[in-house]
């Protein structure tokens, strides 16, 4: 089966010469939860940003290697970046609602894509809120300001916002970082349902979270891919000593 996303020999260097990613090669299968973990500043967020080309905003960077999405090079000149970003949709660490109502937040991306029919918008709003386990809590106040929600609700709103675009891949960069344990559990729970429809790529908040949710996992250290494989095996018996040291907490 062709991998959903195939990262091939990816190198990425910042303006000041710092190598953020060194020769990364990864295959991300469809409909699984793929977790990318490692200590701070090992390149995880950089890699995620390259997936949907938010990295285009960086000035003065150098890139080698490529990323294939469904077999197509995402960096190809003919690629429409807006379409790409709707197919590979990102959720950020800090919940960031846009000013406006809950409904506005959910339909913003759709309207920018040219979808304006009220019935279609309503359908996607309901569907995405149900998928992110937020529907029951807000269905009666879709017109309320998104800023009035609690932290956990805001983050689920952001997840729903991505889902409303009906992407292929949902990328989550440390989505539960600011959330309380209950909200964290709710988000993790919803991921299991989501992977049936979407491919999930996630940077976890902790190794424990990685172990809880991952199907496949990759350990990134200082921009280098140390180990990748089935999560069940990796967290019990890692192949590389560095992976084991990190998982057992010898460094962080």
């Amino acid at each position, binding site marked *: 089966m062709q991998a959903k996303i195939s990262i091939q020999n990816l190198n990425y260097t910042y303006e000041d010469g710092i190598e953020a990613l060194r020769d990364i090669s990864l295959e991300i299968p469809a409909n699984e939860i793929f977790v990318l973990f490692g200590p701070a500043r090992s390149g995880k967020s950089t890699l995620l940003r390259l997936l949907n080309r938010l990295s285009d905003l960086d000035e003065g960077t150098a890139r080698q290697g490529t990323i294939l999405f469904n077999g197509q090079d995402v960096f190809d*000149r*003919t690629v429409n970046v807006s379409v790409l970003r709707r197919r590979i949709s990102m959720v950020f660490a800090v919940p960031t609602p846009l000013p406006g109502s809950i409904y506005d937040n959910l339909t913003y991306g759709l309207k920018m894509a040219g979808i304006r029919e009220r019935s279609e918008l309503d359908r996607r709003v309901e569907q995405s809120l149900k998928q992110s386990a937020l529907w029951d809590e807000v269905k009666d106040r879709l017109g309320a300001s998104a800023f009035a929600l609690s932290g956990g609700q805001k983050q689920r709103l952001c997840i729903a916002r991505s889902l409303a675009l009906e992407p*292929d891949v949902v990328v989550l960069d440390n989505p539960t970082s600011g959330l309380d344990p209950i909200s964290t559990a709710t988000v993790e729970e919803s991921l299991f349902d989501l992977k049936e429809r979407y491919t999930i790529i996630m940077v976890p908040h902790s190794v424990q979270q990685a172990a809880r949710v991952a199907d496949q996992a990759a350990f990134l250290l200082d921009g280098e891919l140390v180990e990748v494989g089935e999560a069940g095996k990796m967290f019990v018996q890692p192949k590389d000593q560095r992976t084991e040291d990190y998982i057992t907490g010898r460094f962080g």
Partner: protein
Amino acid sequence: MTTNPSVITPAVGQKEGQRIPIGEWLIENLIRLAGLSTIVIVVLIFLFLVREGGPAFLDIPLRQLFGSRWYPIEGIFGLLPLLVGSLIVTVGAVTIAVPLGLICAIYLGEIAPTWQREILKPLIEMLAGIPSIVLGFLGWVVLAPLIQNAGAATGLTAFTGAIILAYMSLPTIISISEDALYAVPKEYRDGALAIGATQWQTIWRVVLPAARSGIVIAVMLGIGRAIGETMAVMMVTGNAANIPTLSSGLIFEPVRTMTATIAAEMGEVAQGSLHYNTLFGIGIVLFVITFAINSLAGRIVGTRGARRTGGKL
């Protein structure tokens, strides 16, 4: 979920292979054009000044051009009286405005309680907004007679101009000095107070020296503001193109500034005449002076400061 996995599929409203729709491409380039137009405008201003003013520098022998008689009726165009006039009025204005403005800035930044600041800052902004013609009018109607009553031969003097100009430069000097004081880190003050310094000692020995470069900028920009003022000085400085001497009372004499000369005489010149060219030539001098001052200062302050001073750095 969409069935077609192709990412090359274009978005609504755009052709195959095009990365962004035509409408967007147009808008983005119009925006770039608007940004670059600022450079074009500055260049154009200079070019037009040179176009109309260049003949003055070419046709008038330099010795006369910088001579001490400005007598257009007889075809004598010596700029010195005008330069001196601008100089005296500007120096006078800055001498008054810098100490006053600096003290005000200190008061606002270091001493005044918040509620006072909320009242005083809008007031100073209001001063910045008063049209120069109104201040000139008041100078003409109120201040000049006062000075005349105090003993001067006439109330329309460089001194009168200096006072009015000082008030007009105050908002610039106050806000830039205030910014400079504000930029001094809190730790400096805390450190001084912690070792027992009084508020005044802290200000005098710690805050002011630290803000020195910003204050210098404030002074430079105040000078630029004063040199460029036209209507207010035109109304109160008497418009006599003489060079005041010590015996005739120096700043209590009428003078003519460069700006007032242009404003007063342009209406009467024939287009294309040497007089006309010379007036533009004075414009070139003004442009160069303010360009130099503002480039130097702007390099350090940046456009961030421009908003607070109403765009005039």
